[in-house]
């Protein structure tokens, strides 16, 4: 569907140039909800704007349905954007905003009117058709921006941090709304966000980016359970990193001396070397008897967080480790600070990373 082929984007010239995208390639399929996830400055918006046509990559190609679109200006690309600040035209009504793209495409008036009505119904904004953008709330503006971008029936819809301006409750609502719109229209969505939770809940696939490169592409489950790099593991979710040693038979030796069969990466890792284990806090349990557990540590701090409680421990090698336990008032547990405790987990839930 859309193929980004080894593009490079540099801002500025010479040695002082900032490399925003460094040899980035990605293929996005039909009707896919694809998310570009990363911290600010990682290049995700640059990639989105390159697809939209507002940034011209210095090298590489971008193909849409097999055709190179790099030479096309934004107004000739069958791609529409929902801008971060919505960019609704303040001097036009909601209906005029939504109809703008169709009008520019020279569609007959009757068709424009009909499509505008459809789109406003789709985003549940029919009642606001004659309002000005300034008279709408943030959530309503968001819906209008969506309707406006969907109205010309683009092949790809680009969403640039589109939910970040909304408050938490509205954001959750819009996440569900977006997902619904995507499955109803069947349009490919490319969504940019720095919010990993948002990415995990909405996407079919996620590309995690940092420093102008794509670090990992995969389904939310793959990315969360089997991160390929320390950066990805760290950026997505809370993570414990445990120093360990990998042996030729595929077992891993933990700081306490225990040996387990952890989840190995797809590419082979050289044996008899130090590796890092990624263990998610919610996939671990505390045990009163440290001797039988895979890991053990001294409890330093207990943080109550409503739905669950975080237990901060120091492992035998001095590293920090967090265990998350769901609160259950029916079965209260008490662990004393300073107590030595065991940490248990399913070995398959521990991912081995190189280095």
């Amino acid at each position, binding site marked *: 569907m859309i193929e980004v082929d080894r593009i490079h984007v540099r801002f500025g010239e010479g040695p002082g140039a900032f490399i925003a995208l460094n040899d980035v390639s990605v293929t996005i399929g039909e009707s896919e909800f694809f998310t570009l996830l990363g911290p600010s400055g990682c290049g995700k918006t640059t990639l989105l704007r390159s697809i939209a046509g507002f940034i011209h990559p210095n090298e590489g*190609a971008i193909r849409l349905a097999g055709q190179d679109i790099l030479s096309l200006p934004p107004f000739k690309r069958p791609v529409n954007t929902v801008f971060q600040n919505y960019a609704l035209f303040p001097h036009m009504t909601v209906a005029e905003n939504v109809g703008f793209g169709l009008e520019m495409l020279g569609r007959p008036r009757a068709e424009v009117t009909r499509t505008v009505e459809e789109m406003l119904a789709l985003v549940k904004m029919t009642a606001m058709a004659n309002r000005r953008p300034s008279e709408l709330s943030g959530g309503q503006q968001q819906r209008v921006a969506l309707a406006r971008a969907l109205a010309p029936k683009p092949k790809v819809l680009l969403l640039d941090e589109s939910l970040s301006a909304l408050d938490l409750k509205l954001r959750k609502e819009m996440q569900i709304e977006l997902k619904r719109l995507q499955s109803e229209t069947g349009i490919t969505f490319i969504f940019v966000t720095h919010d990993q939770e948002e990415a995990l809940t909405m996407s079919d696939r996620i590309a995690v980016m940092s420093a102008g490169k794509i670090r990992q592409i995969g389904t939310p489950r793959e990315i969360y359970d089997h991160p390929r790099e320390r950066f990805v593991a760290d950026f997505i979710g809370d993570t414990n990193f445990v120093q360990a040693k990998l042996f030729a038979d595929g077992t891993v030796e933990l700081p306490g001396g225990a040996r387990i069969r952890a989840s190995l990466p797809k590419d082979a890792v050289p044996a008899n070397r130090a590796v890092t284990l990624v263990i998610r806090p919610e996939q671990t349990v505390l045990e009163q008897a440290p001797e039988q557990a895979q890991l053990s540590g001294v409890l330093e701090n207990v943080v109550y967080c409503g739905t669950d409680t975080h237990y901060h421990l120091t492992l035998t090698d001095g590293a920090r480790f967090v265990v998350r336990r769901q609160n259950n008032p029916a079965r209260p547990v008490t662990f004393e600070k300073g107590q030595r405790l065991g940490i248990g987990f399913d070995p398959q839930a521990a991912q081995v990373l190189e280095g």
Partner: protein
Amino acid sequence: MAATQPNTDLVAANRRETRNRWLLLLPAIVILLAAAIGPLIVVVLYSFLVAGDYGGVVWHFSWDGWLGVFTTSDPFDGTLSLADAHISILWRSVKLSALTTLFCLILGFPTAYFIATRPVSQRDGWMLLITIPFWTNLLIRTFAIMGLIRNEGLVNGFLEWLGIIDQPIQMMFTDFAILLGMVYVYLPLMVLPLYASMERLNFSLIEAAYDLYATPFRVLRRVIIPAVKPGVVAGSILVFVPSLGAYVIPRILGGGTQLMLGNLIELQFGQARNWPLGAALSLTLLVMVTAALIVYVRASANEGE
């Protein structure tokens, strides 16, 4: 491999953009060259020529125009001596402009502060009251002041009616009249930038200062004034620069006797028929104004650090 070739259409697009840019700027450049910067260059040229007998210039190089700014040459033996008349006019221009700036600051600072401490909804209205006189014809405002201070004007009439004086006080055609006129006319120019920086003043700083035992005067001196210093500098320049080049106000309120630099320049192009001297005097004024502007730019640049 095609994918790694740099995009050549990017270069072509840049060139097209540059051409369009200068095409759009061309009309402005033409008009400003013809009626602003061009004539100024001609004036520079004229300042190095010899004065014609009936105005105009004779195309001979000469320093006479520039020498004439500060000196006069003896008509018999050609020895140069300091031109007391020019120096006193120059001095009056600088003195009156500085005083104008000072009085505008004394009056304008509290006024701007008063407006900045009104409720938000009222501030625009108060500023409109400052803006209206600013956009009113300078001539009309000068004329209005004249109605106040003429011998048969309102102030003298009022004082005579009170019986304080029996002879009108001569106010017209004095330095006082010029100073009053300039303060009156340029006061809005002081209030506008002062207000702009006071509006941005973080008033919790004042509360913090009071919390730390400052008195109201110390709050003013240690917190408010340092915070709005850019506005003070901008306002002072905005008043000082046009005061220095004032022409209409001293001509009307100073009569033909109390000249400022602007009137001296006019004189050279009128009755005195000494265009090179007029040109040199104009450039002297321009240099003074530019120096003031440079001081301002320096000051505001330091402020940004």
